[in-house]
């Protein structure tokens, strides 16, 4: 579905040439749900722009749905859907219903097909009561559901999502994730999800690509990433009383009042063991386990630590 080979993009700025994407190779098969992560300025949006035909690569090959994006932009646009987290693809001043109609016209969806698909999307995304409402009056969560519906209405083969859950509350995020997961499973839509949200990735993506400084520094499953690089976890303990605490097998990294943070290596001691040890000798009000942060992992990968 997507083939990228030796992709490069050099921008000419006042400070000299800037290499935003420095040679990237990957293949995405039809039906994959790929997470695309990396620090800001890493080259994520530049890659996506080159894949969607908005930007001309400086070198390398890119093919999406069998088309060269920048050469067959309109044909590709028919087969792809895009959702930007911060910006809207809908018609701001008009009722939502009209945005769907316009999408139907734009993508030349036969009316019967459009109505059928729309009815199903309405159900799944609970859009029914929102149809007569002008888009500008929708809440962020409502609007996001509407954006997804509009992007998916033409039954695209590929869906590019840019931070779709940003700023949403827990319920809205869950709705969006459920929908995307369902879409990928039942329709086989290939999804490229650009995000900073670790939960998005762990819940939805079968595969994760991490880009930093224009290079792909990781391409594999999320679990493999965690096992390979996420070797440490953090146990956060809320003690019943403010007292010094030592925990064998774990390193104290932070203390604030009654809350203590302990870092431990997952291959040296299990969380269960640690917690048992802790509860045996201390009165604990509450505790949580923190999984390694993708940002942390990225930083460490880049620094060459394993």
């Amino acid at each position, binding site marked *: 579905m997507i083939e990228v080979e030796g992709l490069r993009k050099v921008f000419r700025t006042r400070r000299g040439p800037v290499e935003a994407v420095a040679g990237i190779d990957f293949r995405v098969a039809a039906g994959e749900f790929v997470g695309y992560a990396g620090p800001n300025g890493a080259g994520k949006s530049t890659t996506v722009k080159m894949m969607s*035909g908005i*930007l001309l690569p400086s070198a390398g090959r890119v093919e999406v749905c069998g088309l060269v994006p*920048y050469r067959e932009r309109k*044909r590709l646009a028919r087969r792809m859907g895009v959702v930007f987290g911060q910006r809207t*693809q809908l018609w701001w001043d*008009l009722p939502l219903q009209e945005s769907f109609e*316009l999408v139907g016209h734009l*993508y030349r969806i036969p009316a019967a097909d459009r109505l059928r698909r729309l009815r199903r999307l309405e159900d799944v995304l609970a859009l029914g009561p929102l149809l007569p409402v002008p888009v500008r009056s929708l809440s962020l969560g409502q609007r996001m559901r509407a954006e997804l519906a509009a992007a998916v209405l033409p039954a695209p083969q590929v869906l590019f999502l840019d931070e779709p859950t940003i700023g949403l509350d827990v319920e809205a995020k869950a709705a969006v994730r459920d929908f995307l997961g369902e879409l990928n499973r039942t329709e086989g839509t290939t999804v490229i999800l650009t995000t900073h949200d670790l939960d998005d990735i762990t819940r939805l993506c079968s595969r994760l690509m991490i880009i930093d400084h224009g290079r792909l520094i990781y391409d594999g499953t999320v679990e493999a990433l965690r096992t390979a690089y996420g070797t440490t976890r953090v146990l956060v303990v809320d003690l019943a009383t403010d007292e010094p605490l030592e925990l064998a097998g774990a390193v104290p990294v932070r203390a604030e009042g009654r809350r203590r943070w302990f870092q431990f290596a997952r291959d040296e001691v299990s969380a269960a063991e640690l917690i048992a040890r802790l509860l045996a000798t201390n009165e604990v009000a509450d505790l949580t386990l923190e999984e390694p942060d993708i940002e942390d992992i990225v930083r460490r990968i880049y620094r060459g630590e394993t």
Partner: protein
Amino acid sequence: MAEPARVYLHLAAAAVRATARRPAYLAMRTLAAALIVVFEVAGVVLLVDRFGTIGGWRPAEVVLLFGLAFAGQGLALLFGDTLEADKVSQLVRRGTFDQVLTRPVSPLGWVLASYVDTRFVGRLLAGAGTVVWAADRAGVAWTPGRAGLAALAVVCAATIVFAVLLAAAGFTFVTVQGSEAVNVLVYGGQYLASYPMQIYGPPLRFLFVWLVPFGLAIYVPALGVLGRQGPPGLPAWLAWLAAPAAGAFLAAGGLAWRAGIRHYVGTGS
């Protein structure tokens, strides 16, 4: 692969519906636009009337030129206002143009259909009304030929104004800054073409007949409508060149737009 015009009509209709939310405000803007034409023309009538003639032309004949120029400008801006350099510059700076490129339509069509400023309907209608009034005062007997010439003038003038906006928009993709100098051509050109060309010296005449052919678009067809001969160097039969000249100008504008898009896609925002 060209999109059926239907798609753009739907988009434009949506744009009109979006602005129709405040019909009273819209009506006021349209009326105000028409009034500007009326008062400007009134001033010209008062002026030329005081002197009797200008370049041998009577007030009503000059007003005919004004009407044609305003109508053409109004027609062009009705659609072309979205191409105004400031607006395009904003599209680029806010990254909204990226979204335009993800749609399966031509970016030009999308931008043009994204907003329809009905204010210019006021200008167009007032201009047309002025033409009718002026022709009546000048004693013009309308024939199909003369009506055709008047329509030709309006359409050609509109084409040239539109082409200027198109070219300027293309440049804005490269410079990203608005260009007020374009206003000189759009508004200055209209103003210049509203007076009979023989009052201008050779450099201005050359510039605005052969380079930015407002003179060919408005003055020469007007000669035909008024049954006038025109000065040496600007005979009435040049009206046959009006359409090709406007067309060539439009093609040039289109090339500039295309080049601008190519630059945008090549370098990103």
